């Protein structure tokens, strides 16, 4: 009889079953006192069963939601179970442990509610793997999983070790200064100064005295000698930002530094030596400035020994969720908030925007949301209004063939889904294999 399905288990058998489960399980009575506590629960919380049973559940479980939003309380009041809610608990060692919890009502044989049951799973390992994966996409302080950016990451250590001048080209806000900082930090000059100067911000005469310094008496009010940036950089690195803005006269002096490593201070007679490595950056196309005659060709060739071209954010949209997450972490620390992420609708809006201001614009969008937000998730209502106008796609120049149109539609769909093919196929209502075949036949380049 006893071997028939549906047999009643004894208390010992029940406890053996509970203890064999990998998830933590505990039950409470209506007074919130713990009535059973399995082995996995002991391991995750660090509380032995004999101490847990009979104690108030919040004193044992110590979860972030015990205070304000107890899942078990909600289930006991409404009868609706909570499934896989991510929270953290503090274990007996004082460590924060990320877990996911699920709750349900506990009824007796007559169907009367006698308490609640909570199951929970340790997410520490998942969290650790997530962080490791995230770490894979970070190089120095630059975050990207884009193919072109990853190629740059691979080249940077080699470029950094050489002593050649480097030209970093990219639209405003693409991270030129971050690349320059990475180059300095990866080079043998990392213990020497890293000097930055924005050439576009200063008038010509001032720029010259900033770069090369001046002697006392060089001009009115030049009461004592002032060292220039080249001198301050010593054996370090100097970054000339917006190099395309400097005048032709100054271009000659700069060419001399790059060619011979020598320069003269304003009002000085001695020739000084510079041992600094020069990095130049610009948001303009220098080759075009050369063809227009605005930029000296010889200086261009001198600077352009190695060129790093940073793609604009609209060409590496797969990085948007990653970057948004990074900025959320950053502003959580700066603003003392606890924002956990973006809602799927908000991500969609961010993915549809074209970002003329690139990564800096994305950072500003997240900062904007942080000013307004009161909850934990950034929803579309916290995003700046201009995103909604731009997300309506402008009718582009019409594609020539059906193949072009298909390629454009598929690329858009892939981008929207963060290049995840399974999700893209689901969105388009086609099979994954069909999508793969289309990608191959239409020669769509995926990162």
């Amino acid at each position: 009889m006893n071997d028939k399905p549906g047999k009643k288990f004894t208390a010992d058998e029940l406890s053996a079953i509970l203890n064999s489960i990998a998830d933590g399980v505990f039950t409470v009575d209506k007074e919130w006192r713990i009535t059973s506590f399995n082995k996995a629960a002991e391991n995750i919380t660090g509380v032995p069963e004999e101490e847990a049973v009979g104690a108030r559940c919040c004193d044992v479980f110590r979860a972030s939601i015990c205070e304000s939003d107890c899942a078990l309380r909600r289930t006991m009041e409404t009868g609706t179970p909570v499934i896989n809610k991510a929270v953290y608990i503090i274990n007996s060692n004082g460590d924060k442990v990320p877990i996911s919890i699920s709750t349900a009502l506990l009824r007796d044989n007559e169907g009367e509610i006698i308490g609640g049951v909570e199951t929970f799973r340790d997410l520490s390992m998942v969290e650790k793997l997530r962080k490791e994966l995230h770490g894979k996409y970070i190089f120095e302080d630059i975050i990207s999983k884009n193919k072109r950016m990853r190629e740059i990451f691979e080249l940077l250590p080699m470029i950094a070790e050489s002593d050649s001048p480097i030209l970093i080209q990219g639209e405003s806000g693409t991270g030129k200064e971050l690349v320059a900082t990475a180059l300095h930090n990866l080079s043998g000059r990392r213990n020497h100064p890293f000097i930055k100067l924005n050439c576009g911000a200063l008038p010509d005469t001032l720029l010259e005295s900033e770069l090369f310094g001046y002697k006392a008496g060089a001009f009115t009010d030049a009461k004592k000698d002032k060292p220039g940036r080249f001198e301050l950089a010593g054996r370090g690195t100097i970054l000339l930002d917006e190099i395309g803005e400097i005048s032709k006269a100054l271009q000659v002096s700069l060419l001399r530094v790059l060619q011979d490593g020598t320069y003269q201070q304003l009002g000085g007679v001695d020739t000084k030596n510079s041992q600094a490595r020069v990095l130049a950056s610009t948001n303009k196309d220098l080759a075009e400035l050369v063809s227009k005659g605005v930029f000296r060709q010889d200086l261009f060739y001198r600077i352009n020994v190695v060129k790093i071209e940073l793609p604009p954010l609209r060409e590496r949209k797969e990085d948007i969720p990653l970057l948004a997450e990074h900025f959320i972490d950053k502003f959580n620390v700066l603003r003392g908030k606890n924002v956990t992420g973006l809602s799927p609708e908000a991500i969609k809006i961010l993915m549809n925007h074209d970002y003329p201001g690139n990564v800096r614009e994305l950072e500003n969008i997240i900062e904007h949301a942080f000013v307004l937000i009161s909850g934990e998730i950034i929803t579309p209502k916290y995003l700046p209004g201009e995103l909604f106008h731009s997300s309506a796609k402008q009718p582009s120049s019409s594609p020539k063939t059906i193949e072009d149109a298909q390629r454009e539609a598929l690329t858009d769909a892939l981008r929207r889904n963060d290049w995840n093919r399974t999700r893209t196929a689901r969105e388009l209502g086609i099979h994954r294999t069909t999508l793969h075949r289309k990608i191959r036949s239409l020669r769509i380049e995926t990162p």
Partner: protein
Amino acid sequence: MKIAIPCRHNLVSPVLEEATEFIIVEMENSNYVNNARIDLNGKSPVQKLQYLVDTGVDMILCGAVSNSYINSITAKGLEVVAWLKGDVDEILQAYISGKLNGERFRMPGRKRCRCRHRRANY
């Protein structure tokens, strides 16, 4: 001396970082001088700690607390007696009479109450 206790109704809050309400007791020679309840709902753990520092709190009696948060608290020069459970008034009385180490107020799973004292180096 000012003591802050995170609480929910009359019981000590289970997790200090997540507490929304605090009782702040001012004491002079083992007697209460003042007793106030403050609401810090919506503030982050960092903001809550700064509020307590600005209010002139010297000591926190609380329930569970993470090691990293306990380090931030002691770095600000506050004393902490953590891993306490039970009724706030009883805990205060026990603290005054020096009986806080009793089994009664100890959270399950902890061998003894964790007391950390450090003065800030301003």
